[in-house]
């Protein structure tokens, strides 16, 4: 894939994971997350094994852990919530390093933390090995309504156009000495957000007109996307199936 439309979550490569068709990866990632969510929270070892499975996928995809870790930071706000739970939950409490912690809260916090982390890591892995446009075509192959796919396609394209427009408008404001330091000086910024909205709306109309002129009738033409053989599916489903088996085994352990 050309570097022309690289996004910060995508890491170009030619591994077996990169080469898998996007719709296969979406299904596998979804099943994996389901398996993680279905695992009982007390089955601590199972989460470890599921994590090892993911590590296996990273090795196959040649993604360095540090690269993933920085992109998984998006989870941070949820971690804060998970950390607070043991302090504020009610029920039986345990003493730890002089702090009184609720057992239920500890488990609930752990539950959010471990499932959230694994979920984010799965999503980041999917994004790291699949270009955005393939994600969209994968979704459309999975019968996601075409209007949703059209909207996603247009959003991918015009987010950058609108961001560039916003940068130019900001530059033009700043060049005329605008330097908002206090809330009551934000008026100009707010007004330019309004102007940006109107401009984007008008651009939407022009894009629609240009699409109509090339025969658009409300449905995107179906571009052929690579289909997946049974062998590909079987190979790709391995991590998801193992994760699911682990989740089931968790009910015995717990």
């Amino acid at each position, binding site marked *: 894939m050309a570097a*022309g*439309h690289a996004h910060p979550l995508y890491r170009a490569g030619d591994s077996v994971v990169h080469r898998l068709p996007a719709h296969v990866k979406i299904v596998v990632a979804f099943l994996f997350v389901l398996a993680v969510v279905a695992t009982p929270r007390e089955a601590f070892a199972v989460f470890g094994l599921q994590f090892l499975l993911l590590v296996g996928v990273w090795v196959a995809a040649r993604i360095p852990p540090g690269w993933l870790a920085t992109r998984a930071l998006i989870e941070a706000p949820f971690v804060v919530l998970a950390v607070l739970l043991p302090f504020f939950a009610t029920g039986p409490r345990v003493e730890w390093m002089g702090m009184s912690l609720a057992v239920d809260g500890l488990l609930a916090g752990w539950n959010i933390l471990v499932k959230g982390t694994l979920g984010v890591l799965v999503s980041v892995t999917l994004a790291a090995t699949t270009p*955005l*446009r393939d994600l969209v075509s994968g979704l459309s192959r999975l019968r996601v309504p075409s209007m949703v796919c059209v909207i996603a396609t247009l959003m991918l*394209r015009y987010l*950058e156009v609108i961001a560039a427009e916003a940068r130019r408008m900001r530059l033009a404001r700043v060049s005329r000495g605008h330097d908002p330091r206090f809330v009551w000086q934000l008026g100009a910024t707010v007004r330019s957000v309004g102007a940006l909205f109107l401009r984007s709306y008008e651009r939407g109309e022009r894009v629609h007109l240009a699409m109509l*002129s090339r025969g*658009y009738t409300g449905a995107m033409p179906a571009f052929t996307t690579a289909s997946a053989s049974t062998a590909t599916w079987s190979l790709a489903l391995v991590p998801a199936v193992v994760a699911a088996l682990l989740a089931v085994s968790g009910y015995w352990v717990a």
Partner: protein
Amino acid sequence: MTASLDVEGLAFAYPDGHQALFGVDLRIERGERVALLGPNGAGKTTLVLHLNGVHRAGAGRVEVGGLEVTRENVQEIRRRVGIVFQDPDDQLFMPTVADDVAFGPANFGVTEPELSLRVKEALDAVGVAELADRSPMHLSGGQRRRAALATVLACDPEILVLDEPSTHLDPVARRELADVLLGLDRTMLMVTHDLPYALQLCPRSVVIDGGVVVADGPTRDLLADADFLAAHRLELPFGFALD
């Protein structure tokens, strides 16, 4: 012989009552390159949007390659009339240039393997074959303009309609686009304020003002008539003079 474009007595008023066209007649033969000139608000864009059925004639009629623009055949009309819009960012909306070039022909029922062939031919015709897998966001202005042209060429139109093709282009990109357009050998209607560009590309010009055609003749003769130009808010750039 059937004309590429035949407009007769075309009149149109917007829903708010503003009348933009008052009976326009325009005939363009196959292979002609015609410039459509006129001041802002003269009705140029309104006329262009009639050619592919976005606006429907209030009175009069439009024929493209012998086929009248009606509600029933609007899809075929849109294939026959290839409009290249002024801002390539409005035209290029797909994640890659190749996808965008494939969008039109795919809508008009072209399927693989011919679709890929069309995309390749169109990109080759405008000299941007190496940009096929790039995102339109990361192209230069000139490349974007040529990619937008390719998206329309891939539909194999009867007539190419260019809306202000030279805006925002640096002099080299402007000249390169002219080379590409001159090499295409297609019927062309070019809406422009860039009078030297009209002179370079189009042997014939049509001037519209106030919703009617006020002149139709050889571009050089029209542009040499300073009084006529002034009467219709047109003027050659500083330093240009034609005898």
